[in-house]
């Protein structure tokens, strides 16, 4: 039955030095005690090389491009940040940490930081809570569930720039629809473009509008992965719907909640478009009421044409994000009750 040709043709040169080549470290050579294997054919050797190097070949496009467009800029930002560096004139003198000091001494930096944190809190906290509620509602035996899921996601396809223009209109200080609406129920118009907190709420609401549905779907996916029999078991154990949500759903999807919180943290600390387009000046208000750190970075770099200082801000922003992500992780662990065991 064997229809195969003999595998080692007679003419094959047996290589007495074993053909391990680069394989040495991973596939040890046969020990002296075992007989040296007969030489591999050229084809077999090729296929060993194939096995060994293909993975690197597959990942290399990513890493090569990433080195150029991701890694290099990252490090270069650090380099720029310790130089005087103007947008037009380019590199100037080495100034050490002066740019950082200048940033720290600039009250608008601190204001931008405050605004960023405030907008981030106003956007991520209600967003996660709302997303949890929506996900809970979607995690039922709905009719036409695809319709509901897609509807929830509609805001996601609206670009932030468009979102901001639309909301910028809705949040008009005197003649905006929202002020008209709250006027109906007897509330005085809110100066959305003047009052610090109001402007933060307005900007946060844009972020929330766009991302809540998206996050709800992520949470929904996690909820659906919760085995149904846990709910049945809990029902038999006497837990009502709300209790089930609290005692089963939330603890079970905790990792995903943390994931959502962290991604919205990273996103929240980078808010730019909404703040930039909230008015037509684009600097974050007369008193920088809603200037975020990224907008501040942009102002430094492209309005004041000081790339050195802007780079310093970029690095600081990075540190803040890392810090926030870590704090978040710790906090959510603690809150989630995962601290035990």
């Amino acid at each position, binding site marked *: 039955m064997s229809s195969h040709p003999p595998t080692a043709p007679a003419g094959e040169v047996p290589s007495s030095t074993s053909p391990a080549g680069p394989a040495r470290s991973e596939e040890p050579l046969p020990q002296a005690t075992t007989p040296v294997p007969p030489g591999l054919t050229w084809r077999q050797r090729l296929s060993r090389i194939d096995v060994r190097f293909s993975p690197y070949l597959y990942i290399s496009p990513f890493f090569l491009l*990433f080195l150029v467009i991701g890694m290099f800029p990252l490090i270069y930002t650090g380099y720029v940040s310790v130089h005087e560096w103007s947008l037009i004139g380019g590199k100037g003198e080495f100034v050490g940490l002066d740019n950082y000091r200048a940033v720290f001494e600039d009250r608008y930096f601190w204001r931008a930081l405050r605004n960023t944190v405030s907008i981030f809190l106003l956007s991520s906290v209600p967003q996660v809570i709302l997303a949890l509620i929506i996900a809970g509602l979607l995690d039922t035996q709905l009719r036409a569930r695809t319709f509901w899921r897609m509807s929830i996601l509609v805001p996601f396809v609206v670009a932030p720039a468009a979102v901001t223009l639309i909301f910028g209109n809705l949040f008009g200080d005197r003649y905006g629809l929202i002020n008209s609406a709250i006027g109906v129920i007897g509330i005085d118009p809110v100066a959305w473009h003047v009052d610090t907190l109001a402007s933060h709420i307005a900007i946060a609401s844009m972020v929330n509008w766009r991302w809540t549905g998206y996050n709800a779907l992520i949470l929904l996916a996690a909820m659906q992965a919760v085995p149904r029999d846990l709910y049945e078991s809990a029902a038999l154990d006497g837990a009502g719907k709300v209790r089930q949500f609290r005692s089963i759903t939330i603890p079970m999807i905790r990792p995903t909640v943390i994931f959502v919180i962290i991604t919205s943290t990273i996103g929240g600390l980078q808010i730019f478009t909404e703040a930039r387009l909230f008015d037509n000046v684009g600097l974050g208000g007369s008193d920088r009421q809603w200037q975020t750190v990224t907008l501040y970075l942009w102002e430094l770099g492209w309005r004041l044409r000081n790339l050195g200082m802007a780079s310093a801000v970029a690095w600081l922003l990075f540190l803040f994000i890392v810090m926030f992500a870590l704090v978040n992780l710790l906090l959510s662990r603690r809150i989630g009750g995962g601290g035990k065991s």
Partner: protein
Amino acid sequence: MNRRPGFLVYGLLTAFVLGSAAPLYWSLIVGSHDKSVVTQRVPPFIPGGEFFSNAQRVFDTVEFWKALGNSLLVSTVCATSVVFFCTLAGYAFAKLRFRGSNALMVFVVATLAIPTQLGVIPLFIQMAKLGWTGTVWAIIVPTLVTAFGVFFMRQYLVDAIPDELIEAARVDGCTMFGIFRNVAIPAARPAAAILWLFTFMTVWTDFFWPMIVMPSTNPTVQIALQQLQSGYYVDYALVLCAAVLSTIPLLILFVLTGRQLVAGIMQGAVKG
């Protein structure tokens, strides 16, 4: 349990959905009236008939056709390239054993947390040196691959391709690339479609980077939108009409592929 949800659930969901749609509807209302509508005490609640004349003005005021063309080109090229390269890398990370794979994957994940703003300045300097600022290259090149794409494809392929399938193909006589072609690509197809969509949307909606590298004379859709609002006076009928116009392509895409998009988001999550 099989109890169907009651009115409360449907009611609340309906409220959320209306909330999701309302701002878009409002921009349609404003965008289809003349500009006086913005300051009316009681705004109209149905769209008017000025949409097409407003749209005409949008095209007259800014280079909207060019913007649409640019956005379409950039989004398509980036999405396609991301899908190709990230499937390749994601597959390697998901299914191939090689030295350093774990460390490299950790690296990929870590880069997910790096804000785009961080690299903007050198990237800008680099683009300027290459003479690409102001051309679509400046947007395309930095998005040819994404760490997210690699991560996403890896997560998907880890489960989508049983190890046995790869081993079966090896025993059946496939080369490494043969396995990629015959086993990985067919298996990756659903995720690849989702990643394509996702990248397309992300690139389409991006504002920050195009704003820095693209001149207003060669805008993407988002840049064109911003130009409309930055005049000495803002004609909201015009601006919101453009907001609607800029969203229409994605809305169409969404209607066609929303199901996959929803599935994709949910998939990414369970495994993320």
